């Protein structure tokens, strides 16, 4: 394995800036790794080695000419396939969009292009980001590089498996109920859901518009900070985009400190009922935080017991509305039944064949939650629970600077374990969902391996709205202490992928 692909994004950027390695070399090393392990891990739905190398060449030429370049220029990246790209297909993991090429770039993609980052390809996801395992991708699941018989998390399992198998130093994810953080936890990588509105959603194929947020996927906290700083910022194309700057995440990560901060241990998510190995690593992390001068306080968030229920009403309701656009008229698949069907019948036939089971299930659930007889009882009630969850967070953040919990109740599960039981699948998101309902930023950082299965465990940090920098500050500090204890980085524990 090339030494280059094992380096962090920050290290590669420094090497390129010093002229010790070219962007073409860095990009080619990752393309070689994609060629080597790509089929086994199945992270990508589309790869674009030629355009990536063309960008790399351009960066090398401009660097040689002495031009001043953006910070991450020449550093390759992968993009989740629910962001639109004009030079590659965008499927959102669905048959209904197979082969579609968007007429415009997502704002985040434009920012990556302006940063001169070679885009290696589009990563796999559960269809329209509905799922926790990538098993609902119409194009087959991605695998967890730690154990190829297990899920890489979802919906962003393509992006998490790409960075954890060294096919790319960085990737873009999107998080509606944990789709960046859960995959991060189960693959031993770092993922951040920024404050709602911190990153433009323009060109993100919407799942649930009041919950969706784009964020960075990386192998360590500093690398994630570099990427968040590139993709964040106001965008007039997204009316929910924040107008204020949230500051430099890189500066916060470099500052890295736990000392004097109050960490709120969420009573409802303190680990009871979670896998024993998850509880053990989480307890150790708490001890490390305390030893480093952080203070632990318990906080009570009683309405979190209802968060999943509210989420699985709000999300399907918004999704059923957002996915109405897939109507066989303007883009994507069209299935015309026999005879002389009306457009209604064409739509119904197209959506039956174009959508997979989880998407249909959620559209029908959402249609029910929004229907006249049940609106108050379901959708209206769920919006009230959302208020209660926000109040719980307000009370908790009055006592603590940062809230902590395990990111997920278990380590990576096996393929097929939960796919037939929607409720069991939904429970994976128990710790990540409240942040989306309240809009607040959250980050998952690896804290070691579970005793019983040697698979990665993550801690989740949550901060008040607009205070993403706090996540990077404490995340980088904890990561640094853990790496000191281990004598290596978390990802160095991952087994070498031996593929033919």
């Amino acid at each position, binding site marked *: 394995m090339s030494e280059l692909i094992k380096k962090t994004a920050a290290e590669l950027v420094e090497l390129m800036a010093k002229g010790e390695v070219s962007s073409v070399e860095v990009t080619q090393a990752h393309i070689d790794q994609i060629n080597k392990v790509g089929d086994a891990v199945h992270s990508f739905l589309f790869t674009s080695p030629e355009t990536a190398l063309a960008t790399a060449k351009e960066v090398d030429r401009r660097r040689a000419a002495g031009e001043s370049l953006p910070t991450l220029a020449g550093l390759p990246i992968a993009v989740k396939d629910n962001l639109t790209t004009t030079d590659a297909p965008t499927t959102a993991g669905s048959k209904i969009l197979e082969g579609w090429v968007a007429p415009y770039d997502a704002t985040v993609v434009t920012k990556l292009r302006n940063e001169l980052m070679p885009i290696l390809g589009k990563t796999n996801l559960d269809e329209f980001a509905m799922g926790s395992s990538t098993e609902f991708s119409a194009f087959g699941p991605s695998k967890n590089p730690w154990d190829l018989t297990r899920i890489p998390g979802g919906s962003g399992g393509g992006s998490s498996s790409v960075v954890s198998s060294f096919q790319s130093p960085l990737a873009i994810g999107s998080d509606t109920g944990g789709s960046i953080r859960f995959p991060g936890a189960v693959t031993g990588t770092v993922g951040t859901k920024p404050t709602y509105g911190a990153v433009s959603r323009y060109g993100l194929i919407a799942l649930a518009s009041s*919950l969706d947020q784009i964020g960075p996927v990386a192998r360590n906290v500093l690398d994630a900070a570099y990427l968040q700083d590139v993709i964040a910022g106001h965008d007039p194309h997204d009316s929910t985009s924040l107008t204020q700057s949230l500051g430099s995440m890189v500066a916060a990560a470099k500052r890295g400190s736990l000392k004097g901060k109050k960490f709120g241990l969420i009573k409802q998510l303190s680990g009871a009922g979670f896998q024993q190995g998850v509880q053990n690593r989480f307890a150790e992390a708490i001890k490390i935080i305390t030893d480093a001068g952080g203070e632990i306080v318990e906080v009570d968030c009683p309405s979190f017991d209802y968060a999943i229920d509210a989420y699985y009403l709000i999300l399907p309701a918004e999704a059923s509305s957002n996915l109405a656009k897939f109507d066989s008229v303007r883009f994507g698949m069209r299935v015309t039944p026999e005879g*002389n069907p009306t457009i209604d019948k064409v739509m119904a036939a197209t959506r039956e064949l174009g959508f997979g089971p989880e998407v249909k299930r959620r559209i029908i659930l959402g249609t029910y939650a929004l229907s006249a007889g049940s609106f108050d009882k379901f959708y209206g009630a769920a919006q009230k629970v959302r208020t209660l969850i926000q109040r719980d967070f307000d009370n908790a953040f009055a006592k603590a600077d940062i809230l902590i919990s395990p990111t997920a109740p278990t380590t990576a599960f096996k393929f097929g374990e939960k796919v037939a039981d929607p409720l069991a699948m939904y429970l994976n998101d128990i710790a990540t969902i409240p942040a989306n309902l309240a809009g607040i930023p959250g980050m998952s950082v690896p804290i070691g391996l579970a005793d019983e299965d040697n698979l990665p465990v993550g801690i989740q940090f949550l901060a008040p709205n607009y205070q993403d920098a706090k996540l990077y500050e404490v995340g980088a500090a904890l990561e640094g202490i853990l790496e000191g204890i281990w004598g290596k980085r978390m990802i160095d524990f991952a087994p070498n992928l031996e593929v033919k």
Partner: protein
Amino acid sequence: MSEITPDLVRHLAGLARIDLTEDEVIRFTEQLSVIVDSVAKISNIIDADTPATSHPIPLTNVFREDVVLPSLTQEQALSGAPDQAQGRFRVSAILDEE
């Protein structure tokens, strides 16, 4: 017990324009019954005075100047269409012949 019946699933699928198979109707009736029974417990913790939240960040009246900005060309807008004619999206009949 949940009020989800096969007829209700067929009705909802009709509203959502999805031509479900009978197997799917049966499976979704079972699965949605379990989900709906579970999520219905949210009514336990709310009351009439609890305000609803539709959006996580308070934002109101996000406007821009009413001026023409660059947008997709007609060709770009039609580029992904399954069928088109004379610069427009082409679809089958809106109304039944009967």
